[in-house]
């Protein structure tokens, strides 16, 4: 006997209770602290802040704990919080030349003013599991050099001095920077909004697209001109004061790729650039972003658009993992009304075909007789 499926409310409450239990895990083991996540899983925290577009390490750590380590779920939690925050203004552009540098590498020059600085990197570690980490062994204090008070000039500025690379792009004087969280996307996009979308885009998706450009799908011949990671000051202009005041510091990863030339009858050949800028320490994402940014500039440079990474609508419309996961996972919601409509049609078409088949057979039989 059919029993109406009631009790959705109780089922939901019980499911969430079970989820809380699984999140906590074995009660004998101490609960993980937000401060532990923030300081010991800091790259996870950085990724959540970057893709949620909200710089708040402790809230990001809370989101990671709440999501049981599911990164996209954590990003979603932080985004849904961010959207409720009032917008009281926009900061001044940050000056990455004035960055307090923790890491800076250039693949285009052996040495350059400011030097190469490896910083806290996995590069050149041998990927051997370290049994020592099973226990809380003492860790040596790091050796650091005294930071130079001088600004570290960017590699692109060095190249630009010779006119070998296109200068920093500029917007019209009256151009208001876009805000993709406050205005609906409109294709084709301007580069500022496109870079915003890429900065919050899914790391895995951008990584795969960037990789595809290296394997021949829209090859752009990139060099890692420079990657720098460090702290920059965020300033905001207060109209009442008439000058800008510092709000605090954020850690950023910036990547400038140097790509193959472009010239014209009037302009001598120059290197072109791709740009990546991401919250926190996130080199993979910043590099991927710079490659994809360059690929997406195809139209600007009059290049043939032949590959997915060059296709702005394709890339930007599908780079947001919160949107993507929601829509892919919504398939688990009930669809039985639609499915019923399809069942009805398939049955009808099969019945008609069966009938037609039976008719032909009887016709053939008659003809044979």
């Amino acid at each position: 006997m059919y029993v109406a499926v009631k009790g959705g409310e109780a089922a939901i409450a019980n499911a969430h209770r079970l989820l809380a239990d699984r999140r906590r895990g074995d009660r004998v083991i101490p609960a993980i602290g937000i401060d532990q996540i923030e300081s010991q899983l800091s790259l996870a925290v950085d990724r959540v802040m970057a893709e949620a577009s909200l710089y708040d390490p402790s809230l990001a750590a809370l989101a990671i704990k709440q999501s049981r380590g599911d990164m996209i779920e954590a990003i979603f939690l932080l985004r849904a919080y961010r959207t409720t925050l009032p917008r009281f203004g926009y900061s001044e552009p940050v000056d990455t030349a004035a960055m307090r540098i923790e890491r800076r590498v250039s693949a285009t020059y052996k040495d350059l003013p400011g030097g190469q600085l490896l910083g806290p990197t996995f590069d050149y570690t041998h990927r051997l599991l370290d049994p020592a980490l099973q226990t809380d062994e003492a860790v040596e204090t790091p050796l650091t050099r005294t930071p130079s008070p001088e600004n570290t000039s960017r590699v692109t500025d060095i190249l630009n001095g010779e006119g070998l690379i296109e200068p920093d792009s500029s917007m019209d004087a009256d151009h208001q920077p876009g805000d993709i969280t406050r205005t609906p996307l409109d294709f084709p996009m301007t580069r500022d909004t496109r870079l915003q979308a890429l900065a919050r885009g899914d790391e895995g998706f951008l990584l795969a697209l960037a990789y595809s450009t290296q394997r021949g799908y829209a090859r752009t011949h990139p060099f890692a001109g420079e990657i720098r990671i460090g702290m920059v000051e965020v300033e905001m202009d207060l109209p009442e004061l008439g000058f800008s005041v510092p709000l605090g510091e954020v850690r950023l990863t910036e990547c400038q790729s140097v790509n193959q030339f472009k010239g014209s009858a009037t302009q001598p050949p120059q290197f072109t650039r791709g740009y990546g800028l991401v919250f926190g320490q996130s080199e993979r994402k910043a590099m991927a972003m710079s490659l994809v940014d360059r690929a997406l500039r195809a139209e600007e440079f009059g290049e043939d658009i032949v590959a997915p990474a060059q296709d702005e609508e394709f890339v930007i419309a599908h780079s947001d993992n919160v949107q993507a996961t929601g829509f892919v996972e919504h398939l688990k919601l009930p669809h039985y009304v639609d499915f019923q409509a399809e069942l009805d049609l398939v049955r009808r078409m099969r019945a008609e075909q069966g009938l037609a088949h039976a008719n032909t057979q009887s016709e053939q039989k008659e003809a044979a007789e």
Partner: protein
Amino acid sequence: MSGLATYNFAYLDEQTKRMIRRAILKAIAIPGYQVPFASREMPMPYGWGTGGVQVTAAILGPTDVLKVIDQGADDTTNAVSIRAFFQKVANVEVTTRTKDATIIQTRHRIPEEKLTEGQVLVYQVPIPEPLRFLEPRETETRKMHALSEYGLMHVKLYEDIARNGHIATTYAYPVKVEGRYVMDPSPTPKFDNPKMHMSEALQLFGAGREKRIYALPPFTDVVSLDFDDHPFTVQSFEKPCALCGAEGVYLDEVVLDDRGGRMFVCSDTDYCEDRRAQGFLGDQGVPLKEAAE
């Protein structure tokens, strides 16, 4: 983090509501036209009704009575979840009775009972663009709408007939609004399309992920696309509802066992219960009071 506990009435801040209301007003002024709006991240996933929830949040007042259905039923999990959300953030009265509701948020169905003046039906829409599966690019489809260039859609429907003998679209069946815009009715079965035509209720469509709102003001002409020799028809069921005996309503197929046992019951649970309360009974139905015991 102390501010986390307090939210504005119906969750969205007033500036956001104003932005959404403007989009709604524009949508009402141009029936069937998709108005872009700055959709917000909501505390439920994209694809789970964020567009409908934002529209409802923007029009909801403290005296409204809200009904939420999914697949025609008030008790499917996502409908329960959205209803609970609005009870929590707006503390409004909720109901399962179609005639008592001032706002009905729906996914995939239009209630069987005729909606009346003053009611608002809010649809959750996954893909607002009826031409999307024919042309994936927004830049192109926008142009096609601007020029009323709908030939591609007719070719698609024609090819269905040529291949299958039928128009093989059974839900999200495209309609033309006031002779101008081709519109996606959201993935409701085509059975419900005629209910949109000249409806007394205001119909609002919200697509959160795709950031579009569109509308059908009351008494709008809504025509399902078809051909003279292949007129639009709706699904019909061979048997009435097994619980309430209703005919001419949309039925869900319920699998009873693994030996091919099936029964067909009303998809609109409120309609079914109402009929049983009035004493109508299908061949497998039990009077409502007994069932509750």
